[in-house]
């Protein structure tokens, strides 16, 4: 029993949105192939810190546990990523290493590791990333789509609004209204879709506004941290090109 291998974690906690944060340490039994969400489940089940004090379960956001819903984003050893796909074995160079867990910094903390990302969904409203059909149930055949357009669109459509890119982007900060890479990616998704393109200009208008594409400083952090390899910088470059053409056309059409 005494020699049973454990995993050590340091967790940054915060009880309510306004209150000060504090750190707590935990130790949970090691299991092969375990991930960080398992550690958090074990912390909840054990209910004590490494020092044996009683501790409320750590609050965190999670659902699918297979890196597809985007819920469980947090800072793990300082790096933004999903807790469910962060395997303990990959995080430790020696079994005695301590893993640190912190909430993302670009979003308001709700409690512990749980942050409020509603801003990202508000930004999706702004870029109108939908297809404006008259009616969903309708017997009109869908437009054909080339393999090329599909191969461009599919990777963008895998964006799970997890917030990694927003967290990593230096341009997203309190002095700046930049909507961030994810929303721009979605704005680009339907620009070439048979029906989706009907809103192309409206989307470009939204991206021209304050906080739009001009906010990008080209740091390229977003693509490095995106867990799904969403081609964000490509999308931003495309948005820029489309905007240039659009602005020119508007100028000529005056």
């Amino acid at each position, binding site marked *: 029993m005494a020699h049973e291998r454990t995993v050590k974690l340091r967790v940054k906690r915060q009880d309510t949105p306004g209150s000060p944060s504090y750190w707590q340490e935990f130790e949970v039994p090691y299991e092969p192939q375990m991930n960080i969400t398992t550690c958090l489940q074990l912390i909840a089940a054990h209910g004590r810190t490494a020092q044996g004090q009683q501790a409320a379960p750590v609050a965190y956001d999670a*659902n699918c546990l297979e890196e597809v819903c985007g819920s469980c984003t947090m800072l793990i050893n300082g790096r933004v990523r999903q807790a469910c796909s962060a395997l303990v074995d990959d995080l430790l160079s020696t079994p005695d290493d301590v893993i640190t867990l912190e909430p993302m910094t670009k979003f308001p903390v709700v409690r512990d590791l749980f942050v409020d990302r509603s801003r990202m969904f508000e930004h999706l409203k702004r870029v109108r990333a939908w297809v404006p059909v008259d009616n969903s149930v309708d017997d009109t055949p869908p437009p054909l789509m080339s393999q090329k357009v599909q191969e461009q669109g599919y990777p963008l459509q895998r964006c799970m609004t997890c917030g990694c890119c927003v967290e990593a982007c230096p341009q997203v900060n309190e002095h700046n209204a930049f909507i961030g890479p994810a929303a721009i990616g979605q704005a680009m998704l339907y620009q070439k879709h048979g029906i989706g393109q009907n809103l192309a200009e409206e989307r470009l208008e939204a991206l021209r506004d304050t906080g739009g594409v001009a906010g990008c400083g080209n740091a390229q952090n977003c693509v490095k941290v995106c867990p799904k390899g969403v081609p964000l910088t490509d999308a931003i470059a495309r948005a820029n090109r489309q905007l240039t053409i659009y602005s020119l056309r508007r100028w000529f059409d005056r």
Partner: protein
Amino acid sequence: MAQQRVIVVGGGLAGLAATMRLAELGRHVDLISMVPVKRSHSVCAQGGINAVNSLTRLQGDSEWKHFDDSVYGGDFLQNQPPVKEMCEWGPRIVDMMDRLGVMFNRTPEGKRDQRRFGGTLYKRTAFAGATTGQQLLYALDEQVRRWEVEGKVKKYEFWEFLGPIVDGKGICRGAVAQDMFSMEIRAFPGDAVVLATGGCGMIFGKSTMSMICTGGAAARAFKAGVKYANGEFIQVHPTAIPGSDKHRLMSESARGEGGRVWVPRRKGDDRDPRQIPMEERWYFLEERYPKYGNLVPRDIATREIFNVCVNEGLSVDPNEYCVYLDVTELPSTTQHKLEGILEIYEKFRGLDPRVMPMKIFPAVHYSMGGLWCDFEKDPHTGGLVLDSPRNQMTNIPGLYVIGEADYQYHGANRLGANSLLSCIFAGLIVGPAIDSWLNALPAGSAAAQPSSLFEGEAARHKEQYEQLINSKGDQNPYLLHRELGQTMTKNVTVVRYNQGIEETLAKIDELAERYKRVAIADTSNWTNQNLSFTRALGDMLIMARVIARGALLRNECRGAHYKPDYAIPAPKGGDPETVRTEAVRWVQAFRKQTQEWLKTTIAEYTPDGPKISYEQVDTSLIPPRPRTYGLVGAEIIEQVWRDTQSADEKAAQQAQPAGA
């Protein structure tokens, strides 16, 4: 007149389709969900969605064949009119999702590419890589966002449904929900309420489902008087990867694209699978089911895997029932179509499935059973009367259920890629059903009901909340949950024995007793996840009883429900005469079983456990028949069955008076 409102609880595929449809019909919707709807469990769906299409039609496919595959796959336990209607809507639904912007894979011409799935011989499944559910959900999420901007939809995300509000006449008038941050409990008046709250895999501890799939919402409706149907039918998927927190699915699409299941022929052969020559591998599904091969329906594939591991002792992992799923020989373009799932294997197992056969095992995956709901059959088409207010309505008027939370479409076993279809279909037809209900609302709108009705219900739930948060016992809810999962998985999954099920029922009683002494470690009134989980645990115990009790009473084998003690013994070899006699006996036993057990299990809530009764199944369109899937050795059963059928027909003709 006060504005009528509809409450939709749950924003997976079913809930979002319903919300979109209702908004299009001009209705105002309050959409309540425990997670931002874009993070609903539907994102996990991988393989695809079924519908007849131009390609399969050329090969002789039709909506009727899709319908036949679905009821044969479901072992005839579904009421057939809704299933027929769903299959007819298939092409329209996939076209719709295409128009709404789903990035389905394409053929060179720009049409949708198709793959084959289990339980059919046609390539009927449209897909977007291996993340089809995510793409479908996001397209609907955007449509609902559009209606949100237009002011037709108001979202309440991170709100948890606690129960329906039912008035003195037994009509549903709204719902009570709790803000998962502030913990505020509020009554929402609603002229119709739709439950689209998904499945209940968490009852089995670990499954392929998401963390919020506890069945809590269904249990709360059940406690309020909604019937629960066919609870014992739980699908165990043949191919998943075991994990410490959940089991992760390896979609049927891996086999649909040509992946093969095998084990070494020799017991204890622990060579690297790549070193095992072809002739020393046993492709047991292909050998036993030459017609369907690796794509037999899930209940059969799972039992076969269980059989080679347990009875033949050929598991490739000493601790689990594991077999190989091999995609290493597929061309890289095909592997590319499976990228989403191959990534999952690589990420969580640390091995590259493109070069190394995957080790997979069966895991709890889907609940065919669910809250009971009604339908109105169109006598002319055999399908549904589309604007009938009865479609998808539970036995509480005004309360509807759709998606995995309902029981309508999959009988005793669901075919792969039929769930996404049934979720969207039910979401679309519940729109006009509710529209009709609202047009003839009995006794005025919800807003016109006395406020005491709503205040009273909110107060009752607040009281329960206070009671739970102050409970200071010695029982840890997470450990109780683990024990529940273990006993359910052990006795109420692939192979079931009455003795084991009885053990589990006794265990559930013990857990329910201990649950009364549960300790809440977190007494905060802010974002208390500990409380929400513990409350759901209480609900899981209620539903576990429904599942186990239904399973105990059903003494037969049907689809996913398999009891060896009640299996009809297969004809053994011997001279043709004996084999035929045995097959005749088999067919007689099959007919008797159909007569006795082809019925829906209905559970009703009582504080002392569920009360079980049974209901007739509408099999008016396709009569039940033995489900052999071309198993080698079962040809004689098919033969005898055909002979008896034609003899019966002849007898019926002769019995008819001449000229009639």
